[in-house]
Each structure stands twice: as structure tokens, then as C-alpha cells.
């Protein structure tokens, strides 16, 4: 006959199994913190060195010139690569610590669910660049990344859903008030990542 301790352990085991197999929990808070810092530095560089601060939707507007745009594009791609690289590396280390594999059923599902909004958003942004709709670039990255997080939250920490909603909101504000687009971007990708990274680190990693 089992005793109470056994039953309690059964229930604890069931709960952890359900969590471990349905959510990707090796995501590191530090990845968010560092991504936020990269984004803040990047936004400052775009603004201060490349004079990227479009005030109108179209490229002919003041605050944009095409040579600066190439630099901003390179800068943006570098930030993206750096942030993803950091996230993968830190999650890999955490997965090892948790005795899990980085590439398993849950991380696969997380990525598959993020891929649709991210890829379609990325293509739309390239289309916008080709049509010269420069003012919409920063808000669009916010909106599509926010949507990706919002839908991916089912497969990782629940709090990510709220972060996604905030980013979409900032993106919508930035698309209406184009002159604040870069500021919204810095707030969303920089500050919100930073805040959420700290929150997840404090709540789940200690």
C-alpha cells in the first residue's frame, strides 16, 4: 500500500512531466537582457551615426538617405544575428544544466509556431524596403515579432504572451506616429526585453 508521500510525489512528477514535455523552459533570462542591451545600443547608433529617424512613411522624407539606409540595414541584421546567437548559446547551456536537449519536441514546436509570423513579417519588410516605405520598417518588426511571441507563449513561459502584446501595441503606435517609430522600437526591443529578461531570470532561474 502506498503512503501519502508516494502520492504527493506522483502528483509532483506528473506536473513536471506535463510541463517539461509541453513547454520549452530552457529559455534564458540573460538572453533577453543582452538582446535588450544590443537593441538599445543599435537604436542609438542608428539615430546618432546614421541619422535614421524617418518622420514620414516614404523614403523621400527628411531623416532618411539611401547610403545611411544600407548602414542601418547592416546594423539591424547584425543585431538580429547577435541576439539570436546569444539566445541559442545561453539556452544551450541551460538545457545542459537541466539535462535536456536543446533541439527537442518542445523547442521545435516553439520555433515552428514563431516561424510563420516572423518569416511573413521579414518578407513584408523587404517588400517595404523595395517600395521605399522606410518609415514603416521599425513598427513592422515590432508588430510581427510581437505576434510571434504572443502565439509562441503557449510553448514556453506564459509571461511571454504579455510581452508580445506590448510589442504589438508599441508597433501600432509607432506606425501611426512615424516620427516616434524608432523610439517605440527602442522601448520595445530594448527596454521591454531588458525588463522581461530580468523578470524571467529572477522568477525562474534562481
Amino acid at each position: 500500500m502506498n503512503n501519502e508521500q508516494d502520492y504527493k510525489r506522483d502528483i509532483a512528477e506528473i506536473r513536471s512531466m506535463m510541463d517539461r514535455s509541453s513547454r520549452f523552459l530552457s529559455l534564458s533570462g540573460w538572453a533577453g537582457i543582452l538582446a535588450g542591451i544590443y537593441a538599445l545600443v543599435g537604436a542609438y547608433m542608428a539615430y546618432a551615426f546614421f541619422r535614421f529617424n524617418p518622420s514620414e512613411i516614404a523614403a523621400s522624407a527628411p531623416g532618411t538617405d539611401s547610403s545611411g539606409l544600407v548602414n542601418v540595414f547592416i546594423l539591424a541584421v547584425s543585431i538580429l544575428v547577435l541576439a539570436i546567437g546569444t539566445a541559442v548559446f545561453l539556452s544551450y547551456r541551460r538545457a545542459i544544466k537541466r539535462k535536456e536537449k536543446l533541439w527537442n519536441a518542445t523547442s521545435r514546436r516553439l520555433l515552428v509556431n514563431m516561424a510563420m509570423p516572423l518569416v511573413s513579417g521579414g518578407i513584408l519588410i523587404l517588400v517595404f524596403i523595395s517600395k521605399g516605405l522606410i518609415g514603416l520598417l521599425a513598427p513592422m518588426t515590432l508588430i510581427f515579432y510581437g505576434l510571434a511571441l504572443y502565439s509562441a507563449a503557449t510553448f514556453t513561459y506564459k509571461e511571454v504572451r504579455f510581452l508580445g502584446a506590448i510589442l504589438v501595441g508599441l508597433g501600432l503606435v509607432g506606425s501611426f506616429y512615424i516620427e516616434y517609430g524608432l523610439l517605440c522600437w527602442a522601448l520595445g526591443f530594448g527596454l521591454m526585453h531588458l525588463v522581461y529578461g530580468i523578470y524571467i531570470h529572477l522568477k525562474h532561474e534562481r
Partner: protein
Amino acid sequence: MRAFINGFHKAFESRIRLGIMSVLAVNDSLDFNSLKEYLDVTDGNLASHLKALEKEEFIGLEKSFVGRKPNTKYYITKVGKLAFDNHLTALEKLIQSQK
């Protein structure tokens, strides 16, 4: 005490079987290797527990090929979900009654 025994199922006495059911309850379907990774058991051990659950018709399987490699995916059946839920309820009740 006796009434609470009703919800329990003998098949779930093993912790590994309980683990299999927990994992399959929250996933549409999973292949053998993913299950093995979550439960941290050997091939033979997992296979025999899967067979036992399959016999009870608590789980079903779907065979396919990835390239030339056979790939079996396991999923929880309606009967299995019901038995698992009952088992959980029984566990909860038992713990509450002992408080």
C-alpha cells in the same frame, strides 16, 4: 478509504507508465525517442511499458517512415485520457482526505 480506490487504475501503479500518460496527455503525439528523452529510461523498459498501456487501449500508435527508417508515434486514446483523469482525481481526493 475504499471509495477512493475506485478511481485508481492498476496500469498506473508504475511511475514510468504514469509518466508516459502525463506526457501524452499534453502532446498530440510523440515518437519513441522523444518519450525516451523525457522519461530517461532504456529502450527495452520503455517498450514494455508502452506495450502494457497499448494492451489496455490507453494509448494508440501510428506507424510511418521517415526516409527508410520506421517511425512510430504514440498518442493518448479517449479511454486512456478518461482513465488518467480519474486517476488524478482519485490521487487529489486521497491527499485531501489525509490532511
